[in-house]
Protein backbone atom coordinates (compact mmCIF):
# COMPACT_ATOMS: atom_id res chain seq x y z
CA UNK A 1 0.00 0.00 0.00
CA UNK A 2 2.75 2.40 0.97
CA UNK A 3 4.54 1.86 -2.30
CA UNK A 4 1.33 2.47 -4.14
CA UNK A 5 1.99 5.81 -5.76
CA UNK A 6 5.65 5.38 -6.58
CA UNK A 7 4.85 4.01 -10.04
CA UNK A 8 4.98 6.70 -12.66
CA UNK A 9 2.74 5.75 -15.55
CA UNK A 10 4.88 6.19 -18.62
CA UNK A 11 3.15 5.38 -21.89
CA UNK A 12 5.19 2.34 -22.81
CA UNK A 13 4.92 0.94 -19.30
CA UNK A 14 1.13 0.77 -19.28
CA UNK A 15 0.71 -2.60 -21.01
CA UNK A 16 3.40 -4.08 -18.79
CA UNK A 17 1.50 -3.17 -15.66
CA UNK A 18 -1.43 -5.33 -16.76
CA UNK A 19 0.61 -8.36 -17.79
CA UNK A 20 2.36 -11.08 -15.86
CA UNK A 21 6.12 -11.61 -15.83
CA UNK A 22 7.14 -14.03 -18.55
CA UNK A 23 8.03 -16.73 -16.02
CA UNK A 24 4.50 -16.74 -14.66
CA UNK A 25 3.16 -16.61 -18.17
CA UNK A 26 5.04 -19.68 -19.37
CA UNK A 27 4.38 -21.51 -16.12
CA UNK A 28 0.64 -21.01 -16.58
CA UNK A 29 0.79 -22.06 -20.23
CA UNK A 30 2.79 -25.08 -19.12
CA UNK A 31 0.22 -26.04 -16.47
CA UNK A 32 -2.66 -25.62 -18.88
CA UNK A 33 -1.02 -27.63 -21.64
CA UNK A 34 0.08 -30.37 -19.26
CA UNK A 35 -3.47 -30.67 -17.93
CA UNK A 36 -5.01 -30.74 -21.40
CA UNK A 37 -2.33 -33.08 -22.67
CA UNK A 38 -2.97 -35.51 -19.84
CA UNK A 39 -6.76 -35.41 -20.07
CA UNK A 40 -7.50 -34.69 -23.73
CA UNK A 41 -4.67 -35.55 -26.07
CA UNK A 42 -3.41 -38.68 -24.37
CA UNK A 43 -6.80 -40.48 -24.44
CA UNK A 44 -7.24 -39.40 -28.04
CA UNK A 45 -3.85 -40.79 -28.99
CA UNK A 46 -4.53 -43.95 -26.99
CA UNK A 47 -7.63 -44.73 -29.07
CA UNK A 48 -5.69 -44.77 -32.33
CA UNK A 49 -2.56 -46.35 -30.85
CA UNK A 50 -4.59 -49.27 -29.51
CA UNK A 51 -6.67 -49.59 -32.67
CA UNK A 52 -3.56 -49.93 -34.84
CA UNK A 53 -1.53 -51.93 -32.33
CA UNK A 54 -1.56 -55.05 -34.51
CA UNK A 55 -1.24 -53.14 -37.76
CA UNK A 56 -3.59 -51.85 -40.41
CA UNK A 57 -4.83 -55.24 -41.57
CA UNK A 58 -5.95 -56.25 -38.06
CA UNK A 59 -7.64 -52.86 -37.78
CA UNK A 60 -9.53 -53.32 -41.03
CA UNK A 61 -10.37 -56.92 -40.18
CA UNK A 62 -12.34 -55.67 -37.16
CA UNK A 63 -14.88 -54.16 -39.53
CA UNK A 64 -15.40 -57.41 -41.44
CA UNK A 65 -16.97 -58.94 -38.33
CA UNK A 66 -20.70 -59.25 -39.12
CA UNK A 67 -21.58 -58.20 -35.56
CA UNK A 68 -19.55 -55.01 -35.97
CA UNK A 69 -21.32 -54.31 -39.26
CA UNK A 70 -24.71 -54.94 -37.68
CA UNK A 71 -23.80 -52.57 -34.84
CA UNK A 72 -22.77 -49.86 -37.30
CA UNK A 73 -25.99 -50.34 -39.27
CA UNK A 74 -28.12 -50.11 -36.12
CA UNK A 75 -26.32 -46.95 -35.00
CA UNK A 76 -26.85 -45.36 -38.42
CA UNK A 77 -30.52 -46.37 -38.40
CA UNK A 78 -31.04 -44.93 -34.90
CA UNK A 79 -29.41 -41.64 -35.86
CA UNK A 80 -31.44 -41.51 -39.09
CA UNK A 81 -34.66 -41.67 -37.06
CA UNK A 82 -33.60 -39.57 -34.07
CA UNK A 83 -31.90 -36.63 -35.77
CA UNK A 84 -34.79 -35.57 -38.10
CA UNK A 85 -37.33 -35.85 -35.26
CA UNK A 86 -35.23 -33.78 -32.90
CA UNK A 87 -34.49 -31.31 -35.68
CA UNK A 88 -38.21 -30.69 -36.21
CA UNK A 89 -38.69 -30.41 -32.45
CA UNK A 90 -35.78 -28.02 -32.15
CA UNK A 91 -37.02 -25.74 -34.91
CA UNK A 92 -40.61 -25.77 -33.61
CA UNK A 93 -39.50 -25.04 -30.05
CA UNK A 94 -37.14 -22.28 -31.14
CA UNK A 95 -39.81 -20.70 -33.37
CA UNK A 96 -42.34 -20.64 -30.54
CA UNK A 97 -39.88 -19.46 -27.89
CA UNK A 98 -37.79 -16.99 -29.87
CA UNK A 99 -40.43 -15.33 -32.04
CA UNK A 100 -43.33 -15.00 -29.59
CA UNK A 101 -44.03 -13.79 -26.08
CA UNK A 102 -46.12 -16.04 -23.86
CA UNK A 103 -46.60 -16.85 -20.26
CA UNK A 104 -44.37 -19.55 -18.80
CA UNK A 105 -41.69 -19.10 -21.45
CA UNK A 106 -38.78 -19.26 -19.02
CA UNK A 107 -40.28 -22.38 -17.46
CA UNK A 108 -40.41 -24.00 -20.89
CA UNK A 109 -36.79 -23.07 -21.60
CA UNK A 110 -35.73 -24.66 -18.32
CA UNK A 111 -37.89 -27.74 -18.99
CA UNK A 112 -36.23 -28.32 -22.35
CA UNK A 113 -32.94 -28.73 -20.51
CA UNK A 114 -34.43 -31.40 -18.29
CA UNK A 115 -32.97 -34.41 -20.16
CA UNK A 116 -29.49 -32.99 -19.51
CA UNK A 117 -30.05 -33.09 -15.78
CA UNK A 118 -31.09 -36.72 -15.87
CA UNK A 119 -28.49 -39.46 -15.66
CA UNK A 120 -28.44 -41.46 -18.91
CA UNK A 121 -29.09 -44.59 -16.90
CA UNK A 122 -32.31 -43.05 -15.61
CA UNK A 123 -33.26 -42.04 -19.17
CA UNK A 124 -33.16 -45.72 -20.05
CA UNK A 125 -34.84 -46.80 -16.84
CA UNK A 126 -37.95 -44.70 -17.39
CA UNK A 127 -38.67 -46.51 -20.67
CA UNK A 128 -38.14 -49.88 -19.03
CA UNK A 129 -40.67 -48.86 -16.37
CA UNK A 130 -43.13 -47.87 -19.09
CA UNK A 131 -42.65 -50.55 -21.70
CA UNK A 132 -40.69 -53.36 -19.98
CA UNK A 133 -42.29 -56.75 -19.43
CA UNK A 134 -43.06 -55.79 -15.83
CA UNK A 135 -43.70 -52.16 -16.70
CA UNK A 136 -46.97 -50.22 -17.01
CA UNK A 137 -47.67 -51.10 -20.62
CA UNK A 138 -45.59 -54.30 -20.67
CA UNK A 139 -48.41 -56.87 -20.44
CA UNK A 140 -50.48 -55.08 -23.08
CA UNK A 141 -47.51 -54.82 -25.46
CA UNK A 142 -46.70 -58.47 -24.86
CA UNK A 143 -50.26 -59.50 -25.63
CA UNK A 144 -50.09 -57.62 -28.93
CA UNK A 145 -46.62 -58.95 -29.66
CA UNK A 146 -44.98 -55.51 -29.79
CA UNK A 147 -41.41 -55.37 -28.58
CA UNK A 148 -40.00 -52.03 -27.43
CA UNK A 149 -37.57 -52.83 -24.66
CA UNK A 150 -34.64 -55.03 -25.72
CA UNK A 151 -35.50 -54.05 -29.29
CA UNK A 152 -34.83 -51.23 -31.72
CA UNK A 153 -37.80 -48.99 -30.71
CA UNK A 154 -36.50 -48.81 -27.14
CA UNK A 155 -33.05 -47.80 -28.36
CA UNK A 156 -34.61 -45.09 -30.54
CA UNK A 157 -36.78 -43.79 -27.68
CA UNK A 158 -33.92 -43.63 -25.19
CA UNK A 159 -31.73 -41.83 -27.73
CA UNK A 160 -34.57 -39.41 -28.54
CA UNK A 161 -34.86 -38.55 -24.85
CA UNK A 162 -31.15 -37.96 -24.36
CA UNK A 163 -30.60 -35.85 -27.48
CA UNK A 164 -33.92 -34.02 -27.64
CA UNK A 165 -32.73 -30.62 -26.33
CA UNK A 166 -29.62 -30.33 -28.53
CA UNK A 167 -31.01 -28.63 -31.66
CA UNK A 168 -33.41 -26.48 -29.64
CA UNK A 169 -30.62 -25.26 -27.34
CA UNK A 170 -28.57 -24.30 -30.35
CA UNK A 171 -31.35 -22.41 -32.14
CA UNK A 172 -33.17 -20.61 -29.30
CA UNK A 173 -30.40 -18.10 -28.45
CA UNK A 174 -29.55 -17.67 -32.14
CA UNK A 175 -33.14 -16.89 -33.15
CA UNK A 176 -33.71 -14.70 -30.09
CA UNK A 177 -30.68 -12.64 -31.05
CA UNK A 178 -31.97 -12.19 -34.59
CA UNK A 179 -35.31 -10.79 -33.49
CA UNK A 180 -38.48 -10.76 -35.58
CA UNK A 181 -38.10 -7.73 -37.86
CA UNK A 182 -37.13 -9.64 -40.99
CA UNK A 183 -39.99 -12.12 -40.66
CA UNK A 184 -42.43 -9.29 -39.98
CA UNK A 185 -41.28 -7.51 -43.11
CA UNK A 186 -41.81 -10.69 -45.13
CA UNK A 187 -45.31 -11.21 -43.74
CA UNK A 188 -46.25 -7.59 -44.29
CA UNK A 189 -45.08 -7.93 -47.90
CA UNK A 190 -47.48 -10.84 -48.30
CA UNK A 191 -45.41 -13.98 -47.68
CA UNK A 192 -47.12 -17.06 -46.27
CA UNK A 193 -45.92 -18.59 -43.01
CA UNK A 194 -43.91 -21.36 -44.66
CA UNK A 195 -42.50 -18.99 -47.29
CA UNK A 196 -41.37 -16.70 -44.49
CA UNK A 197 -39.75 -19.59 -42.70
CA UNK A 198 -37.97 -21.13 -45.69
CA UNK A 199 -36.89 -17.92 -47.40
CA UNK A 200 -36.20 -15.60 -44.44
CA UNK A 201 -35.68 -17.51 -41.22
CA UNK A 202 -33.93 -20.62 -42.48
CA UNK A 203 -31.16 -18.81 -44.39
CA UNK A 204 -30.46 -16.82 -41.22
CA UNK A 205 -30.18 -19.86 -38.98
CA UNK A 206 -28.73 -22.38 -41.41
CA UNK A 207 -25.34 -22.57 -39.69
CA UNK A 208 -26.93 -23.05 -36.30
CA UNK A 209 -29.19 -25.74 -37.75
CA UNK A 210 -26.19 -27.47 -39.32
CA UNK A 211 -24.24 -27.50 -36.07
CA UNK A 212 -27.30 -28.62 -34.10
CA UNK A 213 -27.78 -31.52 -36.49
CA UNK A 214 -24.13 -32.55 -36.36
CA UNK A 215 -24.08 -32.33 -32.58
CA UNK A 216 -27.34 -34.23 -32.22
CA UNK A 217 -26.03 -36.87 -34.62
CA UNK A 218 -22.77 -37.27 -32.72
CA UNK A 219 -24.54 -37.62 -29.40
CA UNK A 220 -27.12 -40.00 -30.85
CA UNK A 221 -24.42 -42.25 -32.28
CA UNK A 222 -22.31 -42.06 -29.15
CA UNK A 223 -25.01 -42.61 -26.53
CA UNK A 224 -24.11 -45.41 -24.18
CA UNK A 225 -25.76 -45.37 -20.74
CA UNK A 226 -29.39 -44.98 -21.76
CA UNK A 227 -29.07 -47.37 -24.68
CA UNK A 228 -27.26 -49.92 -22.55
CA UNK A 229 -30.24 -50.11 -20.19
CA UNK A 230 -32.89 -50.68 -22.88
CA UNK A 231 -30.93 -52.69 -25.45
CA UNK A 232 -30.57 -56.11 -23.88
CA UNK A 233 -27.21 -56.48 -25.67
CA UNK A 234 -28.36 -58.98 -28.27
CA UNK A 235 -25.49 -59.36 -30.70
CA UNK A 236 -26.25 -58.58 -34.29
CA UNK A 237 -29.72 -57.35 -33.29
CA UNK A 238 -29.76 -54.69 -30.57
CA UNK A 239 -26.08 -53.82 -30.24
CA UNK A 240 -25.16 -50.28 -31.18
CA UNK A 241 -21.56 -49.25 -31.86
CA UNK A 242 -20.88 -48.14 -28.30
CA UNK A 243 -22.36 -51.33 -26.88
CA UNK A 244 -20.31 -53.35 -29.34
CA UNK A 245 -17.21 -51.53 -28.11
CA UNK A 246 -18.10 -52.52 -24.56
CA UNK A 247 -18.60 -56.20 -25.42
CA UNK A 248 -15.34 -56.47 -27.36
CA UNK A 249 -13.45 -54.65 -24.62
CA UNK A 250 -14.80 -56.95 -21.94
CA UNK A 251 -13.71 -59.91 -24.07
CA UNK A 252 -10.18 -58.46 -24.18
CA UNK A 253 -10.48 -57.94 -27.93
CA UNK A 254 -8.79 -54.55 -27.61
CA UNK A 255 -7.98 -54.04 -31.28
CA UNK A 256 -11.59 -54.69 -32.24
CA UNK A 257 -12.96 -52.47 -29.47
CA UNK A 258 -10.65 -49.58 -30.27
CA UNK A 259 -11.17 -49.98 -34.02
CA UNK A 260 -14.91 -49.33 -33.62
CA UNK A 261 -14.09 -46.66 -31.03
CA UNK A 262 -11.80 -44.94 -33.54
CA UNK A 263 -14.77 -44.43 -35.88
CA UNK A 264 -16.70 -42.77 -33.07
CA UNK A 265 -13.64 -40.69 -32.23
CA UNK A 266 -13.38 -39.49 -35.83
CA UNK A 267 -17.04 -38.54 -35.62
CA UNK A 268 -16.29 -36.52 -32.48
CA UNK A 269 -13.40 -34.75 -34.21
CA UNK A 270 -15.60 -33.93 -37.21
CA UNK A 271 -18.15 -32.50 -34.78
CA UNK A 272 -15.54 -30.27 -33.18
CA UNK A 273 -14.38 -29.17 -36.63
CA UNK A 274 -17.96 -28.30 -37.60
CA UNK A 275 -18.38 -26.32 -34.40
CA UNK A 276 -15.26 -24.29 -35.15
CA UNK A 277 -16.42 -23.70 -38.71
CA UNK A 278 -19.87 -22.55 -37.59
CA UNK A 279 -18.39 -20.18 -35.00
CA UNK A 280 -16.15 -18.75 -37.69
CA UNK A 281 -19.11 -18.32 -40.05
CA UNK A 282 -21.27 -16.61 -37.43
CA UNK A 283 -18.44 -14.32 -36.47
CA UNK A 284 -17.88 -13.40 -40.12
CA UNK A 285 -21.59 -12.77 -40.59
CA UNK A 286 -21.72 -10.54 -37.54
CA UNK A 287 -18.77 -8.48 -38.74
CA UNK A 288 -20.30 -8.29 -42.23
CA UNK A 289 -23.52 -7.03 -40.71
CA UNK A 290 -21.52 -4.34 -39.00
CA UNK A 291 -21.25 -5.33 -35.38
CA UNK A 292 -23.89 -6.27 -32.88
CA UNK A 293 -26.57 -7.48 -35.29
CA UNK A 294 -25.95 -11.17 -34.69
CA UNK A 295 -24.84 -12.84 -31.50
CA UNK A 296 -21.04 -12.90 -31.61
CA UNK A 297 -20.48 -16.41 -30.35
CA UNK A 298 -23.76 -18.27 -29.99
CA UNK A 299 -22.18 -21.69 -30.25
CA UNK A 300 -19.60 -21.10 -27.57
CA UNK A 301 -22.17 -19.66 -25.21
CA UNK A 302 -24.61 -22.53 -25.45
CA UNK A 303 -22.11 -25.35 -25.69
CA UNK A 304 -21.37 -25.89 -22.01
CA UNK A 305 -24.96 -26.54 -21.12
CA UNK A 306 -25.82 -28.09 -24.43
CA UNK A 307 -23.80 -31.24 -24.36
CA UNK A 308 -24.42 -32.62 -20.94
CA UNK A 309 -26.09 -35.91 -20.45
CA UNK A 310 -24.27 -39.16 -20.36
Amino acid at each position, binding site marked *: *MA*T*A*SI*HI*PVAHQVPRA*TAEPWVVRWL*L*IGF*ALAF*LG*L*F*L*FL*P*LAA*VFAQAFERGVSAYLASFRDPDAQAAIRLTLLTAAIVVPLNLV*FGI*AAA*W*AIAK*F*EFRGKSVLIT*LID*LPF*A*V*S*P*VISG*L*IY*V*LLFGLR*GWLGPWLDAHDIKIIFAVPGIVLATL*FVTCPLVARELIPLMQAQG*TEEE*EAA*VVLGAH*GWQTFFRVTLPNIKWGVLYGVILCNARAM*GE*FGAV*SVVSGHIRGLTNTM*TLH*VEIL*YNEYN*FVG*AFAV*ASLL*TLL*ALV*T*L*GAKTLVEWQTRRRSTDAGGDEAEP*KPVAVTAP*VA*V*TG*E
Partner: protein
Amino acid sequence: MSGAAQSRTRRILPGFGLAMGFTLTYFCLIVLIPLGALVLKTTGMSWGDFWSAVTAPRVLASYKLTFGASFVGALINAVFGSIVAWVLVRYRFPLRKLIDAMVDLPFALPTAVAGIALTSIYATNGWIGRLLEPASIKVAFTPLGVIVALTFIGLPYVVRTVQPVLEDLDAEIEEAAASLGARRWQTVTRVILPELWPALATGFALAFARALGEFGSVVFIAGNMPMKTEITPLLIVIKLEQFDYAGATALAVVMLVASFALLLLINLLQRWASRLRPVHGD
Protein backbone atom coordinates in the same frame (compact mmCIF):
# COMPACT_ATOMS: atom_id res chain seq x y z
CA MET B 1 -36.40 -3.95 -25.62
CA SER B 2 -39.58 -2.01 -26.22
CA GLY B 3 -42.47 -3.94 -24.75
CA ALA B 4 -45.06 -2.24 -26.93
CA ALA B 5 -43.38 -3.29 -30.15
CA GLN B 6 -43.03 -6.84 -28.84
CA SER B 7 -46.68 -7.25 -27.99
CA ARG B 8 -47.75 -5.93 -31.37
CA THR B 9 -45.47 -8.26 -33.31
CA ARG B 10 -46.69 -11.42 -31.72
CA ARG B 11 -49.87 -11.27 -33.74
CA ILE B 12 -48.16 -10.58 -37.05
CA LEU B 13 -46.10 -13.76 -37.32
CA PRO B 14 -47.96 -16.99 -38.01
CA GLY B 15 -47.33 -20.48 -36.73
CA PHE B 16 -47.37 -20.00 -32.98
CA GLY B 17 -50.14 -22.53 -32.41
CA LEU B 18 -48.55 -25.17 -34.62
CA ALA B 19 -45.03 -24.73 -33.28
CA MET B 20 -46.13 -24.60 -29.65
CA GLY B 21 -48.53 -27.49 -30.04
CA PHE B 22 -45.91 -29.70 -31.62
CA THR B 23 -43.27 -28.70 -29.07
CA LEU B 24 -45.46 -29.48 -26.08
CA THR B 25 -46.87 -32.72 -27.48
CA TYR B 26 -43.46 -34.05 -28.46
CA PHE B 27 -41.84 -33.01 -25.21
CA CYS B 28 -44.61 -34.53 -23.11
CA LEU B 29 -44.49 -37.82 -24.99
CA ILE B 30 -40.72 -38.20 -25.00
CA VAL B 31 -39.71 -36.59 -21.72
CA LEU B 32 -42.43 -35.57 -19.27
CA ILE B 33 -44.71 -38.62 -19.30
CA PRO B 34 -41.87 -41.16 -18.99
CA LEU B 35 -40.33 -39.11 -16.14
CA GLY B 36 -43.74 -38.89 -14.52
CA ALA B 37 -44.01 -42.68 -14.70
CA LEU B 38 -40.83 -42.92 -12.66
CA VAL B 39 -42.21 -40.71 -9.91
CA LEU B 40 -45.53 -42.54 -10.00
CA LYS B 41 -43.75 -45.85 -9.60
CA THR B 42 -42.21 -44.76 -6.30
CA THR B 43 -45.56 -43.72 -4.89
CA GLY B 44 -46.44 -47.43 -5.09
CA MET B 45 -43.71 -48.18 -2.56
CA SER B 46 -44.20 -47.91 1.16
CA TRP B 47 -42.03 -45.35 2.92
CA GLY B 48 -40.22 -48.08 4.86
CA ASP B 49 -39.36 -50.02 1.70
CA PHE B 50 -38.20 -46.86 -0.01
CA TRP B 51 -36.05 -45.83 2.92
CA SER B 52 -34.38 -49.22 3.31
CA ALA B 53 -33.76 -49.36 -0.46
CA VAL B 54 -31.99 -46.01 -0.54
CA THR B 55 -30.01 -46.44 2.69
CA ALA B 56 -28.66 -49.97 2.28
CA PRO B 57 -24.91 -50.07 3.11
CA ARG B 58 -23.91 -50.88 -0.48
CA VAL B 59 -26.02 -47.95 -1.68
CA LEU B 60 -24.56 -45.57 0.91
CA ALA B 61 -21.06 -46.57 -0.20
CA SER B 62 -22.02 -45.77 -3.79
CA TYR B 63 -23.33 -42.30 -2.81
CA LYS B 64 -20.08 -41.60 -1.02
CA LEU B 65 -18.04 -42.52 -4.09
CA THR B 66 -20.35 -40.82 -6.61
CA PHE B 67 -20.68 -37.54 -4.74
CA GLY B 68 -17.11 -37.55 -3.43
CA ALA B 69 -15.43 -38.30 -6.76
CA SER B 70 -17.73 -35.86 -8.60
CA PHE B 71 -16.82 -33.16 -6.10
CA VAL B 72 -13.08 -33.76 -6.38
CA GLY B 73 -13.31 -33.95 -10.18
CA ALA B 74 -15.21 -30.66 -10.31
CA LEU B 75 -12.67 -29.09 -7.96
CA ILE B 76 -9.75 -30.17 -10.16
CA ASN B 77 -11.63 -28.72 -13.12
CA ALA B 78 -12.30 -25.47 -11.28
CA VAL B 79 -8.58 -24.94 -10.67
CA PHE B 80 -7.17 -26.15 -13.97
CA GLY B 81 -10.18 -25.03 -16.00
CA SER B 82 -9.64 -21.42 -14.87
CA ILE B 83 -5.96 -21.65 -15.74
CA VAL B 84 -6.82 -23.05 -19.17
CA ALA B 85 -9.42 -20.33 -19.75
CA TRP B 86 -6.98 -17.63 -18.65
CA VAL B 87 -4.19 -18.94 -20.88
CA LEU B 88 -6.50 -19.30 -23.88
CA VAL B 89 -7.87 -15.76 -23.54
CA ARG B 90 -4.77 -13.83 -22.46
CA TYR B 91 -1.76 -15.46 -24.07
CA ARG B 92 -0.74 -16.18 -27.62
CA PHE B 93 1.10 -19.40 -28.36
CA PRO B 94 1.33 -21.91 -31.22
CA LEU B 95 -1.74 -24.10 -31.89
CA ARG B 96 -3.84 -22.02 -29.50
CA LYS B 97 -6.93 -22.15 -31.72
CA LEU B 98 -6.67 -25.89 -32.18
CA ILE B 99 -6.30 -26.41 -28.44
CA ASP B 100 -9.24 -24.10 -27.82
CA ALA B 101 -11.41 -26.19 -30.15
CA MET B 102 -10.24 -29.43 -28.54
CA VAL B 103 -11.47 -28.36 -25.10
CA ASP B 104 -14.94 -29.48 -26.17
CA LEU B 105 -13.76 -33.02 -26.93
CA PRO B 106 -15.36 -34.52 -23.80
CA PHE B 107 -18.72 -33.18 -25.05
CA ALA B 108 -18.37 -34.85 -28.41
CA LEU B 109 -16.53 -38.06 -27.58
CA PRO B 110 -18.82 -40.97 -26.65
CA THR B 111 -18.36 -41.73 -22.99
CA ALA B 112 -17.72 -45.41 -23.61
CA VAL B 113 -14.79 -44.47 -25.85
CA ALA B 114 -13.45 -42.12 -23.20
CA GLY B 115 -13.84 -44.89 -20.64
CA ILE B 116 -11.83 -47.51 -22.50
CA ALA B 117 -9.19 -44.97 -23.59
CA LEU B 118 -8.63 -43.72 -20.03
CA THR B 119 -8.59 -47.27 -18.70
CA SER B 120 -5.95 -48.32 -21.21
CA ILE B 121 -3.79 -45.35 -20.22
CA TYR B 122 -4.06 -45.82 -16.47
CA ALA B 123 -4.03 -49.63 -16.27
CA THR B 124 -0.80 -50.96 -14.76
CA ASN B 125 0.59 -51.70 -18.24
CA GLY B 126 -0.70 -48.44 -19.74
CA TRP B 127 1.24 -45.32 -20.69
CA ILE B 128 0.76 -43.59 -17.34
CA GLY B 129 -0.13 -46.57 -15.18
CA ARG B 130 3.31 -48.01 -15.97
CA LEU B 131 5.00 -44.86 -14.67
CA LEU B 132 2.91 -44.80 -11.51
CA GLU B 133 3.34 -48.47 -10.67
CA PRO B 134 6.84 -48.16 -9.10
CA ALA B 135 5.36 -45.58 -6.72
CA SER B 136 2.61 -48.16 -6.06
CA ILE B 137 -0.06 -45.69 -7.11
CA LYS B 138 -2.96 -47.47 -8.73
CA VAL B 139 -5.44 -45.41 -10.72
CA ALA B 140 -7.48 -47.81 -12.83
CA PHE B 141 -9.92 -49.94 -10.83
CA THR B 142 -9.67 -47.66 -7.76
CA PRO B 143 -11.63 -44.57 -6.66
CA LEU B 144 -8.78 -42.53 -8.16
CA GLY B 145 -9.77 -43.88 -11.58
CA VAL B 146 -13.33 -42.70 -11.01
CA ILE B 147 -12.00 -39.22 -10.28
CA VAL B 148 -9.92 -39.29 -13.47
CA ALA B 149 -12.95 -40.23 -15.58
CA LEU B 150 -15.16 -37.61 -13.94
CA THR B 151 -12.48 -34.95 -14.39
CA PHE B 152 -12.33 -35.78 -18.08
CA ILE B 153 -16.07 -35.52 -18.70
CA GLY B 154 -16.40 -32.29 -16.69
CA LEU B 155 -13.39 -30.59 -18.24
CA PRO B 156 -15.13 -28.21 -20.69
CA TYR B 157 -17.62 -26.70 -18.23
CA VAL B 158 -15.40 -24.42 -16.18
CA VAL B 159 -13.34 -23.41 -19.21
CA ARG B 160 -16.44 -22.55 -21.24
CA THR B 161 -18.16 -20.60 -18.46
CA VAL B 162 -15.07 -18.62 -17.38
CA GLN B 163 -13.72 -17.94 -20.88
CA PRO B 164 -16.44 -15.51 -22.09
CA VAL B 165 -16.30 -13.55 -18.82
CA LEU B 166 -12.56 -13.13 -19.18
CA GLU B 167 -12.99 -12.06 -22.80
CA ASP B 168 -15.53 -9.40 -21.82
CA LEU B 169 -13.50 -8.08 -18.92
CA ASP B 170 -12.65 -4.44 -19.48
CA ALA B 171 -8.92 -3.84 -19.79
CA GLU B 172 -9.58 -0.45 -18.22
CA ILE B 173 -10.30 -1.75 -14.74
CA GLU B 174 -7.03 -3.63 -14.71
CA GLU B 175 -5.24 -0.54 -15.95
CA ALA B 176 -6.96 1.49 -13.26
CA ALA B 177 -5.88 -0.97 -10.59
CA ALA B 178 -2.34 -0.97 -11.91
CA SER B 179 -2.15 2.81 -12.17
CA LEU B 180 -3.46 3.09 -8.61
CA GLY B 181 -0.46 1.06 -7.60
CA ALA B 182 -1.78 -2.48 -7.27
CA ARG B 183 0.74 -5.21 -7.85
CA ARG B 184 -0.19 -7.62 -10.62
CA TRP B 185 -1.01 -10.29 -8.06
CA GLN B 186 -3.29 -7.90 -6.19
CA THR B 187 -5.04 -6.96 -9.42
CA VAL B 188 -5.65 -10.62 -10.18
CA THR B 189 -6.97 -11.60 -6.76
CA ARG B 190 -8.87 -8.42 -5.89
CA VAL B 191 -10.09 -7.17 -9.25
CA ILE B 192 -10.25 -10.05 -11.71
CA LEU B 193 -11.13 -12.97 -9.44
CA PRO B 194 -14.21 -11.31 -7.87
CA GLU B 195 -15.53 -10.81 -11.40
CA LEU B 196 -14.98 -14.49 -12.16
CA TRP B 197 -16.58 -16.03 -9.07
CA PRO B 198 -20.13 -16.42 -10.41
CA ALA B 199 -18.91 -18.00 -13.66
CA LEU B 200 -16.48 -20.21 -11.78
CA ALA B 201 -19.19 -21.37 -9.38
CA THR B 202 -21.56 -22.06 -12.30
CA GLY B 203 -18.88 -24.04 -14.12
CA PHE B 204 -18.12 -26.01 -10.98
CA ALA B 205 -21.78 -26.81 -10.39
CA LEU B 206 -22.27 -27.85 -14.02
CA ALA B 207 -19.25 -30.14 -13.91
CA PHE B 208 -20.41 -31.59 -10.60
CA ALA B 209 -23.96 -32.18 -11.86
CA ARG B 210 -22.69 -33.81 -15.02
CA ALA B 211 -20.38 -36.08 -13.05
CA LEU B 212 -23.14 -37.27 -10.70
CA GLY B 213 -25.08 -39.00 -13.46
CA GLU B 214 -22.08 -40.17 -15.47
CA PHE B 215 -22.07 -43.83 -16.37
CA GLY B 216 -20.23 -44.72 -19.58
CA SER B 217 -16.72 -43.56 -18.84
CA VAL B 218 -16.74 -44.65 -15.20
CA VAL B 219 -17.86 -48.27 -15.52
CA PHE B 220 -14.74 -49.19 -17.48
CA ILE B 221 -12.14 -47.56 -15.25
CA ALA B 222 -13.81 -48.17 -11.89
CA GLY B 223 -13.55 -51.95 -11.72
CA ASN B 224 -17.03 -51.94 -10.14
CA MET B 225 -16.27 -53.69 -6.86
CA PRO B 226 -19.26 -53.58 -4.48
CA MET B 227 -18.75 -51.22 -1.52
CA LYS B 228 -15.52 -49.91 -3.07
CA THR B 229 -15.73 -48.67 -6.63
CA GLU B 230 -19.39 -48.91 -7.48
CA ILE B 231 -21.13 -45.68 -8.53
CA THR B 232 -24.84 -45.12 -7.96
CA PRO B 233 -25.88 -45.14 -11.67
CA LEU B 234 -24.22 -48.56 -11.99
CA LEU B 235 -26.15 -49.77 -8.96
CA ILE B 236 -29.36 -48.72 -10.71
CA VAL B 237 -28.38 -50.84 -13.72
CA ILE B 238 -27.49 -53.80 -11.50
CA LYS B 239 -30.85 -53.63 -9.71
CA LEU B 240 -32.61 -53.42 -13.05
CA GLU B 241 -30.78 -56.49 -14.32
CA GLN B 242 -31.96 -58.35 -11.20
CA PHE B 243 -35.53 -57.20 -12.04
CA ASP B 244 -35.60 -55.21 -8.79
CA TYR B 245 -37.59 -52.44 -10.48
CA ALA B 246 -38.65 -50.88 -7.18
CA GLY B 247 -35.09 -50.68 -5.87
CA ALA B 248 -33.81 -49.21 -9.14
CA THR B 249 -36.61 -46.65 -9.15
CA ALA B 250 -35.94 -45.61 -5.57
CA LEU B 251 -32.27 -44.96 -6.33
CA ALA B 252 -33.20 -43.14 -9.53
CA VAL B 253 -35.49 -40.82 -7.57
CA VAL B 254 -32.71 -39.98 -5.12
CA MET B 255 -30.38 -39.16 -8.03
CA LEU B 256 -33.09 -37.15 -9.78
CA VAL B 257 -33.77 -35.08 -6.68
CA ALA B 258 -30.05 -34.40 -6.33
CA SER B 259 -29.72 -33.32 -9.97
CA PHE B 260 -32.84 -31.14 -9.87
CA ALA B 261 -31.57 -29.42 -6.74
CA LEU B 262 -28.32 -28.76 -8.59
CA LEU B 263 -30.20 -27.52 -11.66
CA LEU B 264 -32.01 -25.04 -9.44
CA LEU B 265 -28.73 -23.97 -7.86
CA ILE B 266 -27.18 -23.50 -11.31
CA ASN B 267 -30.12 -21.34 -12.39
CA LEU B 268 -29.71 -19.20 -9.28
CA LEU B 269 -25.97 -18.94 -9.91
CA GLN B 270 -26.55 -17.85 -13.49
CA ARG B 271 -29.04 -15.23 -12.33
CA TRP B 272 -26.44 -14.01 -9.83
CA ALA B 273 -23.84 -13.92 -12.60
CA SER B 274 -26.05 -11.93 -14.97
CA ARG B 275 -26.98 -9.48 -12.24
CA LEU B 276 -23.32 -8.84 -11.53
CA ARG B 277 -22.47 -8.62 -15.18
CA PRO B 278 -25.28 -7.30 -17.34
CA VAL B 279 -24.92 -8.67 -20.86
CA HIS B 280 -23.48 -6.17 -23.30
CA GLY B 281 -25.80 -4.53 -25.77
CA ASP B 282 -29.00 -5.05 -23.80
